[in-house]
Structure formats: C-alpha cells, structure tokens
C-alpha cells in the first residue's frame, strides 16, 4: 500500500514537473486554438479605434460569414515590444499594423512578417514611394496602407472674432500670431514636455518649407547636405520664431493636455497631425474646426508638404497558408476597405489605388493641399533613425532644449548632426 502511494506520489510529481517546465509551449498552443480556425486577429497601435474598426470589420464579416475578425490593439508605447514577443512565441495577431521604414523593418528582419509580393500581386499597382517605406531589397513585407499629413488646425470662431483669415505665407502666419496674442488669446495649444510633436509635427511639418522639402531630405540621406548647413539651420530658426506664442508654462504641457486645450476651444491654433481630426471633433469643436497647410515662405512658393508614410498592414509569420487571414489581408488591400477606413478615421489617407470620396471637409482640405505640393516625409525618419543615437531621438531632444531656451537653433542643429556623425555612413 505504502509503495503504491509512493509510486503514485512520484508519478504526480513527474507530471507536475513536466507541466511546470513545459507550461509556456502549452499556453502557446492553447491560445492559437481559442479563436478557432476562422478567427483572424488584427492588431494596431491605435487603441482609440476599437469601435470604428469594429464597424469596418462588420462589413467584411457580413460578406465572409465563415470568418470572424477580432480587432485587438496594443497601446502605442508597448506596441513594438508586444508584437515582437507575441508573434515570436506563436501567439501573436495574424494581421498587424507595421510602422514605416526602420521601425517596421525590424519586424521583417526578425522574421516576424511574411513577404507579400506573391501573396498579393496587386501590390505592384501601389505608389512606388509608399512601397519603399515597407520593403527591403524588393521584398514588400507590408501593404503600404495609409499616410498622414501635418499642418495647422485653427479655431474658426476665434479667428472670426478677431477678423483673421488663415495665413498662406510665413509672415502672414506670424502676424496672425501677434494679433491673437495682443487680443489676449492663447495663440497655440503647444507644449514641449514631449519631444516628438516638436520634431514630427512642427519641424518636419512646418520646417520643410524652409529646408527645401524632399530634395534637401534626399541630399541629407546621401550626405550631400548636413543639418548644420544653411537650409536646415534656417528651418530650426524659423520654427523657433513660434516660441513666444506658446502658452504660459508650455515646458510642462504634455501632448494630451495640448489636444484638450485646443479641442475645448481654449487656444486659437494647434500645430498637429491629420490623425487628430476625430479627436477634435469628439472634443466638441465641430464646425469651428479649421485647418491650413504649413505656410510657405513667400507667396507663390510651392508647398513642401510632409505627407508621412504612417501604417502598413503585414501578415505575421506562419500565416501564408492561413486562408482566413489571407482573405482578410486581401480585403485590406482593396479600395472598399480603404474607403471605409477613411470614412471612419478621417485624417488617414490610403495609398490603395482607387477613386475615393472624402466626406470630412477638413480631411478633404488636407488632401487637396497635396495636389500642388512636393511631398516629403519626416526629416530624419528614413535610414537616419536606424541606429543609436537615432535621428528621431536626437531631434526630439534638441528641439525641447531649443524651445526651453537651453540652446540656440544652430546649437540644436549641431547637436543632431554630431549624434548622426557617430554612426551614419554618409556622414563619416
């Protein structure tokens, strides 16, 4: 009897040991099964889109009754890490948003994404410039899906009250700022606690007209121009001209507070991205929400428009034979999905070839501005942020220091250039 208990106990122990030591693989296998064969999980870094994506996916599910699509976003800050960890351990989403250029290429280089060239032959019809942001050596690893623009939102009510019109040139812009300040208005809902809006939106968006847009960015990538050269230093100087119009205590205002200030009508202007249309509408600006393109230097100058490649859609590894996932992926590359997406999320502009109708007037203005403009992307996003110290990080740090008065515009340019000199081959 005693022996039997001992053997039984030992058996239980071995089973327990195996369970504990092999727990992760068991979990991994289990999670795959929970959704069933026809469940497709789609993830992005935009947690605010759950309801709207649900409505978009409802259309697909009604047309494809055998497939259930679950939209399961991850917060922006954790997105890259969580996607990599989950896909690598076999429990990740089948369809995922992929960032443009280097941050997205890290996914592909780590083997997280399936090549799409043969799976989606129609990708050949997508714009070449957009494809370039999600491909490596000719392999497209994500559908070049949407881009975003940068410009200046304004409160029509406040402008009307002071008899102001949206400016077209930089001098007009500064005059509008001066008038608003004299009238006691909060001119900009801008803060510098976080660096990324300063670089991604203000410098890349408004500075492009002064550093020479895409042509200068290409020269920078080739090493023919440096950030310490006149065009870029000038861009730093020009965007610095806006600092006297920032609100009191701007050094401590974070991104969400900026949006709240403008969205609730407590500031006349907000230099922002097209993805914010929905946020301002939800905050109640309604018909008072106006927008104008980054002011050019002189009347008649061609707009250098930062139309940034924002999100691609990828297929995670091991799903090239997953019919349900492929079927959904194919749909995301269709004009139908693009139109639905742009309707639900105004301010995102699809690269998917097709004829679209933009129902949102602000979004329509943004896309119209692109008709007579040279398009470019954020200044140091491509290649220049592939290594440490990244161009993005350097720009953010330098611009915060510049706006907070610790360094001059020239010193800001020198700081970024010095950081890039340490690793970027064309600068060595």
């Amino acid at each position: 009897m005693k022996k039997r208990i001992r053997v039984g106990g030992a058996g239980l122990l071995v089973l327990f040991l195996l369970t504990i030591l092999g727990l992760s693989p068991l979990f991994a296998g289990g999670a795959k099964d929970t959704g069933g064969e026809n469940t497709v999980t789609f993830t992005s870094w935009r947690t605010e889109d759950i309801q709207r994506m649900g409505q978009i996916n409802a259309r697909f599910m009604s047309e494809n009754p055998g497939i259930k699509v679950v939209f399961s976003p991850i917060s922006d800050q954790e997105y890259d890490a969580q996607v990599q960890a989950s896909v690598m351990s076999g429990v990740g989403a089948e369809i995922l948003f992929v960032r443009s250029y280097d941050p997205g290429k890290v996914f592909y280089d780590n083997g997280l994404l399936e090549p799409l060239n043969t799976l989606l032959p129609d990708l050949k019809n997508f714009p070449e410039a957009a494809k370039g942001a999600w491909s490596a050596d000719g392999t497209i690893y994500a559908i070049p899906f949407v881009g975003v623009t940068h410009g200046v939102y304004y409160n029509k009510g406040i402008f009307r009250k002071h008899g102001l019109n949206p400016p077209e040139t930089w001098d007009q812009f500064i005059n509008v700022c001066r008038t608003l300040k004299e009238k006691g208005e909060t001119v900009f809902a801008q803060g510098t606690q976080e660096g990324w809006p300063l670089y991604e939106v203000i410098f890349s968006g408004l500075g492009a007209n002064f550093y020479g847009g895409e042509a200068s960015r290409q020269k920078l990538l080739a090493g023919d121009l440096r950030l310490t050269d006149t065009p870029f230093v000038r861009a730093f100087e020009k965007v610095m001209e806006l600092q006297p119009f920032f609100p009191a205590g701007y050094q401590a205002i974070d991104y969400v507070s900026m949006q709240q200030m403008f969205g609730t009508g407590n500031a006349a202007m907000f230099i922002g991205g097209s993805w914010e249309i929905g946020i301002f509408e939800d905050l109640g600006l309604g018909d008072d929400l106006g927008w104008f393109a980054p002011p050019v230097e002189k009347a008649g100058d061609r707009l250098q428009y930062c139309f940034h490649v924002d999100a691609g859609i990828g297929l995670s590894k091991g799903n090239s034979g997953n019919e349900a996932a492929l079927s959904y992926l194919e749909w995301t590359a269709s004009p139908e999905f693009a139109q639905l997406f742009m309707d639900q999320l105004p301010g995102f502009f699809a690269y998917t070839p097709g004829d679209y109708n933009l129902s949102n007037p602000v979004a329509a203005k943004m896309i119209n501005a692109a008709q007579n403009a040279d398009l470019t992307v954020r200044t140091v996003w491509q290649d220049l942020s592939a290594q440490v110290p990244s161009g993005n990080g350097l720009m953010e740090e330098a611009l915060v220091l510049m706006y907070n008065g610790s360094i001059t515009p020239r010193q800001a340019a020198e700081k970024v250039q010095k950081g890039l000199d340490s690793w970027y081959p064309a600068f060595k």
Partner: protein
Amino acid sequence: MRKPLGIPGQRTVWPMIILFTLPAFLIYFRFLLLPIFQSIGVSFFTGSGMSPGEFAGLDNYRKLLTMNPYKTRFWNAFRNNLVFFGIVMVIQNGFGFFMAVLLTRPGKGIHTVRILTFLPTTLSVIVVGFLFNMMLNPTWGIFNELLSFLGLESLIRPWLGEPRTALTMISIAVSWQFLGESILFYAAGIDSINPEILEAGRIDGVNFLQEIRHIILPSLIPIVGIVTIMIFMGDFTQFDIVYAMTTTRGNPVYGTDIFGSLFYRAAFQSPARDGWGVGMGATVSTIMSLLVFLGVSLWLFFFHRQKKRFFLE
C-alpha cells in the same frame, strides 16, 4: 541530541519535506529564478528588437559603461535614481517616522487619521501619477492656482517641465502614495514598545524629543532598516510613476529618466524610439539588479554594525 523532524515516534520525513516543498520550488524556479538567469544570459548577446543576436561576451557591459550615448543615459539614470531615492527617503523615512510618533499619541480621532494615512497606498500608481499630473498642469492645475491665491506668484513654474523640479515632483508623488506604509510600520513598532518603559521615562522627566531619541528610536531601529531597504528596492526598480507622469522618455529631456524607464525603453522600443535592443536592455536590467543587491547587502552589513553600536551605547 537533535530531535528528528516529523511526527513523534516516526522516522525522519525528509522525503515528505522534499515532496511538499518541491512543487513550490519548481514554481519559484520556473517563474522567477529561470527568467532571471535567462535575462542575464540575454545580456551577453547582441540583438535588435526582441531577438537576441550573436554572442557578444561582455561587450554590452563595456558599451553601457564607456560608450556614448549609452553611458550618458546610464549615468544620468543612475544620478536621477539617487536623487529620487534621497528625496523619497527624507519624506517617507523622516516625515513618516514623525507622523507615526504623532499618530501614536493619545487623542480623539487619531485612529481614523491613522487609517486615512494608509489610503493612498491602496491606489494604483497610474492613478496617483494622473492625479499629480492634473494638479501640476500649468494651464488648469490646482497647484499653481493655490500659489497664486496665496500671493506666491513668484514661485509658479512649469513643475513637470524643468528637469530638477520634475524629478522632485515625481519623488513627492511616490512619497505621498507610500507614506502610509512607513507610518504603518513605525506606528506598529511604537505600539509594541512596553508602555511601562515610556511611563518610567516620563516619571524620570524626559521631554518629547528625549523620549524619541532615547526610547522610541532605539526600539524602532530594526524597522528603520526594513523601511529603508523597502524604499531602496522600490526606488531602484521603480517604473510606473515615471511612465504615468513623464512617459518612458523621462521627460523633460531625460530629466526624470531612472533605471526602470531606461531599461524599458532600451529593451522594448525600436531604435527609432530610443531602443537599444533586447541585449542592451537585459544588460541595463542586470546592472540594475546588481546595484540593488549590492546596495541591500551593504546596508544590511552597516546597519547590523550600527545597530550593535546603538544598543551598546
């Protein structure tokens, strides 16, 4: 002769002891020890994103301590962590001790106040961070409004916009939240002092400060040690409050960047967002753990000696 373990009159039950502790040990090993060893292992590899690359020996450690921008960020986080720890220590240990002394005096409603002081500890750090962010907001925050109301306009500043004040503010936020914990420990210690000793002191004519110096403090020395170690470990592995108040970038310009945020950014962000790859991230976390281990060991060593001296005096 040592008495054998087990039921009297029966044989030693070592196999049973092993049998019953093994499951707990296995869980501990699988979910705590093994990941720690794996993390240390990853620190010897290169790697972009979450994938460990090639074996790099101690190269990550060399880079972290000697090469820019790694060393700048590392030493900056180290310095910030020390300041953070210093401020929290003063408030939680110093102020917490005196609060506990006051809250153990007899008085009407004292018991309720004691309970109330513990309330913030039950809140989530994210909630506390959000509350402090709201209060310190330069546009609608109540803190600057209060200064203005008191006629102290000259003191108004962007509290979370300047590196020095931002670090002080996040230290205060953490201290405010966990002050109740220190008070709880110290008050429990004071409660356990034999009332006859306190009474004897009072009969002998000790004043309030003498009572603290010669009766209360010596009795609480072991608790001072425990609270200090808890603060030290908590502060050198702190992440949540920075995440909630000044983002993982330790805004403004890394002014509030401490080891927790540096590790998170290094390991989990892409290079474009200041990430260094999982190998460097594991290196930061290994050094972080080593520092905590060394700090706690040193503190225990000196504390043990000081305690002996204190009691011998």
